[in-house]
């Protein structure tokens, strides 16, 4: 049967009517707003620690790995997803959206006294460093897993946000691993949670064969109090690392909050310096503002706009011009003599900061290597 005319076509077309329905399937999109109920989420550590609390109706996971840390969670603390080095993580919500973050981080092979850590925490809330003798007066005795430990309370003003903040932290050492228990957040909230934090520390126990973080023995402690995390490797070009030639003797370590990269350089007699690489959108607050922030870190007064050119030198780089600042003073965290060398590189829509800071002698030794490093960067 050949269909040569429209009249004959009309008869057969009815058999092909379903075809237009295909087009109607187009854009079977999810609704714009969806509502549903889901079981509470489990993290890998939670799934390991509490296999019976998987989604309701979920069969038991027999043969699950042994729990990493055991504790009694205070009622108003919420379990938070674990990130990086944390063996336990909680969020505490207060009034008016105030928050506190609680972490338990094991660091194997970490030796030495608590002084460096305490001074680092004090710096985070804008307090000056203390000496070993003063440290003893700050320690409050607590109990962690049946062992005596010291609790340190640091209350001050967060230099980054200008808000009143408090850090409660306790360190205990066990089987060659240093355990850091820390609560960070709004001053009033953390202070109010202190009794709950002490009870939590008392309830902690370490099962046999507890999993430990894998870090080199000389690795500095990692700050577990991040409020923001970097996007993963699948994220956008905003977190791309440039390529560069790292001088020998520089050891790369995790950068922490919003650093593109971080290196530590060791000098003689345990002196050291750190190289931070970061970037900010736009002008990053401007050269003067950043210079004054660094001067503050070295216990120096702010600089006026008119004196800016006296304190910075231009530097020619393959991609354009940069500004170099060389500042000497006293480290606000520990009162030691320190020096800071910074290179500020404006690029299209962003500004890159390269900062070498630490012991004055180490900075002097590494000055040329630092400048060569900056000049080697390819974006």
């Amino acid at each position: 049967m050949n269909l040569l005319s429209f009249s004959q076509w009309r008869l057969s077309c009815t058999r092909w009517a379903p075809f237009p329905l295909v087009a109607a399937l187009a854009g079977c999109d999810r609704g714009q707003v969806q509502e549903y109920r889901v079981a509470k989420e489990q993290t890998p550590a939670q799934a390991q620690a509490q296999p019976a609390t998987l989604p309701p109706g979920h069969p038991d996971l027999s043969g699950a790995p042994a729990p990493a840390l055991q504790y009694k969670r205070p009622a108003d603390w919420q379990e938070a997803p674990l990130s990086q080095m944390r063996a336990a993580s909680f969020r505490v919500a207060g009034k008016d959206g105030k928050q506190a973050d609680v972490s338990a981080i094991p660091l194997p092979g970490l030796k030495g006294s608590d002084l460096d850590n305490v001074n680092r925490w004090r710096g985070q809330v804008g307090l000056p460093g203390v000496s070993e003798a003063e440290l003893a007066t700050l320690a409050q005795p607590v109990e962690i897993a049946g062992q005596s430990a010291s609790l340190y309370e640091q209350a001050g003003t967060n230099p980054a946000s200008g808000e009143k903040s408090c850090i409660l932290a306790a360190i205990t050492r066990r089987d060659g691993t240093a355990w850091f228990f820390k609560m960070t957040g709004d001053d009033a909230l953390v202070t109010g949670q202190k009794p709950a934090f002490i009870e939590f520390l008392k309830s902690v126990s370490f099962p046999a064969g507890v999993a430990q973080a894998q870090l080199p023995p000389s690795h500095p402690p990692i700050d577990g109090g991040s409020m923001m995390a970097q996007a993963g490797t699948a994220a956008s070009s905003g977190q791309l690392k440039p390529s560069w030639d790292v001088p020998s003797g520089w050891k790369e370590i995790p950068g922490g909050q919003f650093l593109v990269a971080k290196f530590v350089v060791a000098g003689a007699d345990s002196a050291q310096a750190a190289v931070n690489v970061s970037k900010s959108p736009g002008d990053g607050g401007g050269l003067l503002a950043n210079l004054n922030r660094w001067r503050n870190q070295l216990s120096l007064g702010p600089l006026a706009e008119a004196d800016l050119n006296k304190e910075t030198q231009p530097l020619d780089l393959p991609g354009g011009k940069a500004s170099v600042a060389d500042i000497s003073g006293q480290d606000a965290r520990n009162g030691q003599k320190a020096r800071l060398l910074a290179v500020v590189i404006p690029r299209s829509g962003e500004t890159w900061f390269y900062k070498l800071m630490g012991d004055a002698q180490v900075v002097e030794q590494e000055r040329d290597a630092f400048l060569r490093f900056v000049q080697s960067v390819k974006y």
Partner: protein
Amino acid sequence: MSLDYLLDRLISFFTSLRLTVVCLALALVLVFWGTIAQVDLGLYKAQNEYFRSFLIYWGPKGASWRIPVFPGGYFIGGVLLINLIASQIRRFSFAASKIGLWMVHVGLILLLLGQLLTDLLSRESTLHLREGEARNYSEVEREAELAVIDTTDPDADKVVAISQGVLAAQKSVGPGDLPFTARVKRFFANSQVADRPADAALPPAATQGTGRRAIVNELPHVTDMDHRDVPSAVVELETPQGSLGTWLVSEYIDDPQTFTWNNRTYALALRPLRNYKPYSIQLLKFRHDVYPGTDIPKNFSSRILLQRPQTREKREVLIYMNNPLRYGGETYYQSGFDPDNRGTILQVVHNPSWLTPYLSCVLVGVGLVVQFATHLLGFAFKRRTA
């Protein structure tokens, strides 16, 4: 000029071989042009603008107007499909010598239809699991959703998920969907969130939560295949009693931001869009084997535990290269892994018309064989009887 005459001309147009040739030529040009456009637009944007469209528009840079300049993939493919079907109907005759041709053409129609259905209905997502972790959802990385989660109940969370389309249009949601109104003040399709220096001139991104200590900057759309846009938004929450402030939500912010209102606790998170399933998958072990003495990968495999409480199903499955898991209308492929070899990334594909390319290839192949065999046998028979 009668209606029948006009419609006959229309039928002649849609059944002509000339139309087929023109469509194929346009398709060639479209594929070339769309491939070149990927360089500036990136794969996904080029696909949407050139191939998943009826018309391709152009406008001068900076101008707000655009005009159609070329037919898009749906247009050319649609006309080709109509041409194929119409010509088959018009020229159809039930003869043994034409069966092969009929099969070939039906196979081509099935191929075109199947690809159209794949384009309209298929969904791709990823499932990223660490060893020991179980999940009952996969994530669409290139599409985000703002999740407003009521976490008050100890057993379950009530989630209101607002699509990226609503955020991009800067609309409001609720009340009705939410017990308060979430008003999108700003949306950044691609962004960077950074710590705000204490003495920064730029104001903080928001008045509440993490945004008080952050600044957000809009970035240009990413075209590099190895990276993707990371969206952020500033949302104001309004209740009958007043505003709960503005909140910065971003895929850069790992932990949900919490607040309480009316004795209920909520969490806000901008996250990749989730597709929940009635079963869970737990990663038992990921293996990355290399050839001995080398760094050359030999095998990537994920041993998973598939569990479906409603059917009491519980079984281990090994997913490895070229050996996906097909379950529940979805296919799980071994796609990637974490650098420490303790996590796996599975690509999850939902494609109801996945069989059509196979069926159409079989139809076309068999049709060709039948057609050639018919002619060959006919010729051989004629020679014998001659």
